[in-house]
């Protein structure tokens, strides 16, 4: 028990700060980049651009994050673009996430009835005003619960970046195992630490779902 509080917990908590940093940073990239992609995809009307975005999204979504991280971390280094592990983790998970959030925002936009933009055009708004003032705020509200779910998933997925030596929870767990061999205790503590971080987030998502889920009274 003493070993738990003196060694394991401090180690895992140090890792948790990196876990949280990587989660927040890649969430920020994913949420903004995905929104821009969704805007362009929904409203540009340029076929070539649309195709490029679709290709980007499908490429990122149909390949494991681990694979993307290895390409980014080991692959690019081999041709002279070395990125250190934490930035590689943030960029990798951020890009993968942008594909996820792009789809989330797009379904937010497509959930809005045609009447919403028609009414805005009818009062004399320009297309840009329609998108910014009328459609985006609503799409964002529809997207909030699934974005919350994505954030929860992302928090867990950061465990993968231990494989490119980013010193988060699982990384610390593994290195402590190598030095102490307390595998059962260490890995169950790690699992519980994730659970302790996920539960409040899951509770928040459930509240979002209650507040915004399916309540698009258009």
């Amino acid at each position, binding site marked *: 028990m003493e070993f738990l509080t003196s060694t394991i917990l401090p180690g895992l908590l140090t890792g948790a700060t990196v876990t949280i940093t990587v989660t927040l940073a890649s969430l920020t990239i994913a949420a903004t980049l995905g929104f821009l992609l969704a805007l362009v995809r929904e409203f540009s009307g340029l076929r070539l651009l649309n195709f490029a975005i679709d290709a980007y999204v499908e490429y990122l*979504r*149909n390949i494991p994050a*681990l694979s993307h991280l290895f390409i980014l971390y080991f692959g690019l280094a081999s041709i002279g673009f070395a990125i250190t592990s934490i930035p590689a983790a943030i960029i990798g998970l951020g890009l993968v996430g942008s594909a996820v959030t792009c789809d989330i925002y797009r379904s937010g936009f497509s959930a809005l009835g045609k009447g919403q933009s028609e009414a805005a055009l009818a009062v004399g708004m320009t297309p840009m005003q329609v998108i910014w003032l009328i459609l985006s705020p609503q799409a964002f509200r529809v997207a909030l619960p699934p974005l919350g779910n994505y954030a929860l998933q992302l928090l*867990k997925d950061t*465990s*993968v970046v231990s494989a490119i030596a980013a010193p988060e929870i699982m990384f610390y767990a593994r290195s402590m195992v190598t030095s102490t061999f*307390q595998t059962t205790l260490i890995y*169950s503590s790690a699992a519980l630490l994730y659970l302790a971080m996920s539960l409040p987030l899951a509770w928040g998502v459930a509240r979002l779902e209650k507040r915004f889920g399916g309540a698009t009274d258009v």
Partner: protein
Amino acid sequence: MFEFLSVFVQYADQWGPRLAEAAVVSARISLLGFALAAVVGLVLALMQDASSALLRGVAKGYVIFFRGVPVLAILFLIYFGLPGIGVVFDAEPAAVVGLGLAFAAQMAEVYRAGLSAIPKGQWEAARSVGFLPGQVLFLIILPQVARIVAAPVIVTFVALLKDSSLASLITVNELVLEGRALATEYFLPLHIYIWVGVMYFIIAFPLSMLAKLLSRRARLGTR
């Protein structure tokens, strides 16, 4: 660009067979893991509707736990952690069990969403024309549920397939681990990891497209 691409051609006969073999392992753990997830998920879904509060509580706790803990942590716990209390798994069975248990929670949600999407009137109408309970379920309800869950089931499988890459971290010799071995042998990590990625894509992309098609069709069907 041409130089870059020519590397793939140059090593195709050396990498190709080894990665193909590893892909079989990836497919195997994914399919077995998914089969486990489908069964356990169904049990969980039924438990969540059970009249016993204990069964409901256990199912709910299960879903909360596996929704909150990374698959990687589950795999480590099973493969590295359980031997500490005397339960020893080989790497591949550990991966199958870990993936299966983790995704069972998701499958349970998929089943529940499918069942709850069937309006009560469907049961009532089926009963009122005189169907037996079994007939109600198999002729009227399940065909509708199947239509609704087809797409999310495939989406869940693709997610599981992608997470099967984590098995490389518990020494299962699947695509990513074989890729790492090749990368150290040939010092061409960029090419090799791209190849690995493409192999996943080749399986996952058609499935994702199928899921998209099915979900569109299911939506049209319910209107």
